[in-house]
Structure formats: structure tokens, C-alpha cells
């Protein structure tokens, strides 16, 4: 069944790459957000092939369910003007930097692939099911999880304070 694994992973990897390119190169911000959704969903499928079922579901819930919806909501809220100056046409330096970075990355990864001695993965004994990940979360990583909840609370309050429309105080003269 090796070829089945490979074909599944390759399919979802191609979809994820296509989604990534779509985010970068589409003109419309709504289209970018939808391509981002495609990317996140196929990443969830790739997590499944790695045996991380819980994370795949969390990925769909958090990224596809919350983050992309927030993005689309914001794009709709600001009226999605078609940005004619969307790409940095006047910035050839940034284009050159992007090209150089991409080349450096390709060279580096092929060098690492050629030089390293690859060991077979150990594999997860009990898979990344909710039970095993949750057990770890509430025993060894209890403090970080609690801190993450405090962080989320702070983010919630901060977002409300930042996005609130500032009203003039009562009794102030109208303009």
C-alpha cells in the first residue's frame, strides 16, 4: 500500500502548494482568503497521513473555521477595494530579494538531502489521538495550556478594545 500513501500525500501536497501560490498571486483579497482555506484544509489532510488525527481536526476547526472566517469578515468589512498597487512593481529590490531567497532555499534543501544520512522514522506508538494528546496536555504541559488560555483571554479583550469605535464623551459639542 506504499503507492497509495505516496499518491495521497503527493496529491494533498500539490493542493497545498497550489493554494499557497493562489494566496500570493491572486488579485482579489477574497480569492486569496479562499486559497488560504484550501491550503489549510490540505495541510489538515497531510497531518492525517502523519498520524496526527487530533491536530488535523484542530487545524480545520481553528484555522479553517475561525481564522479564515475572520479574514473574509475583515475583507468584506473594509469593502475589498481592488488594489491596483497590489504588487510591488516599483520595488525591484524586493523582487530580487525574493528570488535570491528562493534560490538559497532550494540549494540548501537539496544540499541537506544529498548529505544527510536518513533514518527511518520511529513512528508514533499510540498515534496522535485525542486521548493521548489530551493526556499529555493535562499532565506534563498543564502550565503552558493554562498560559495559552490566559493569552486567548487577553487577545479577546485587546481585540475588543482596539476595534471599538471611539465615541466622543457625553456632553461634548457636536461637530
Amino acid at each position, binding site marked *: 500500500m506504499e503507492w497509495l500513501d505516496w499518491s495521497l500525500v503527493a496529491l494533498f501536497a500539490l493542493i497545498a502548494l497550489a493554494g499557497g501560490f493562489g494566496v*500570493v498571486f491572486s488579485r482579489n*483579497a477574497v480569492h486569496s482568503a479562499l486559497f488560504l482555506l484550501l491550503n489549510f484544509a490540505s495541510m489538515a489532510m497531510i497531518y492525517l497521513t502523519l498520524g496526527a488525527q487530533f*491536530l488535523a481536526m*484542530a487545524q480545520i476547526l481553528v484555522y479553517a473555521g475561525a481564522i479564515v472566517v*475572520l479574514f473574509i469578515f475583515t475583507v468584506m468589512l473594509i469593502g475589498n477595494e481592488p488594489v491596483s498597487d497590489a504588487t*510591488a512593481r516599483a520595488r525591484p529590490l524586493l523582487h530580487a530579494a525574493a528570488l535570491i531567497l528562493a534560490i538559497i532555499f532550494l540549494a540548501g534543501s537539496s544540499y541537506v538531502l544529498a548529505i544527510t544520512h536518513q533514518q527511518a522514522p520511529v513512528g*508514533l506508538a499510540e498515534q496522535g489521538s485525542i486521548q493521548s494528546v489530551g493526556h499529555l496536555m493535562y499532565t506534563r504541559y498543564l502550565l503552558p495550556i493554562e498560559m495559552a488560555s490566559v493569552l486567548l483571554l487577553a487577545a479577546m479583550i485587546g481585540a475588543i478594545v482596539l*476595534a471599538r469605535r471611539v465615541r466622543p464623551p457625553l456632553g461634548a459639542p457636536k461637530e
Partner: protein
Amino acid sequence: MIPTAFYLILAGVIFTIGVLGVLIRRNVLIIFMCVEMMMNAVNLTFVALSRQFGTLDGQVFVFLIMAVAAAEVAIGLAIVLGMIRHKDTTNVDRINLLNG
């Protein structure tokens, strides 16, 4: 079993696409989306290496990163909204109030 190197290279390519987006695009929302994509690529390396070494700690870490990403998006989009209310543009080149 599919080798870990495949996943690592996939994550690297997706990260590079995110960097390209941050460098090429000028729309603040799309730059933000690319940052999210880069974070996702890093998550993929965590999950792949968690399988490579046979421990679940990497997956717990990815869960924490997801919480941080959610907080980051909420705050970031609130900042974007406030900025648009203030300056009425999404082009990061025109957001230069601190530029003197």
C-alpha cells in the same frame, strides 16, 4: 512509511511561498495571510518530527502555536481595522506615520 524529509521539504517550500508573498505583495491583509501560511509550515515540521522521534510533545506544541495564531489574528485584524479607519488604505507602503 513516507520519509520525514519529504514533509520537511514541503514545509520549507510552503514557508518560502509565504516569504515571497510578504516580500511581493503590498496589501496588508494578504501579507498577514502569508504570515499565517508560514506559521502553518512550521507546524508541519513539528508534526513530521514528532513522528520521526516517536513522541507526542511536538503535537502539543503545535496546539499551543494554534492558540497563539488565533490570538494573533484577532489582534492583528483589529489593528488593521483601526488603521483603515484612521488612514483608509490597505497598502503597507502608505502606512508611514512614524516615518517622520
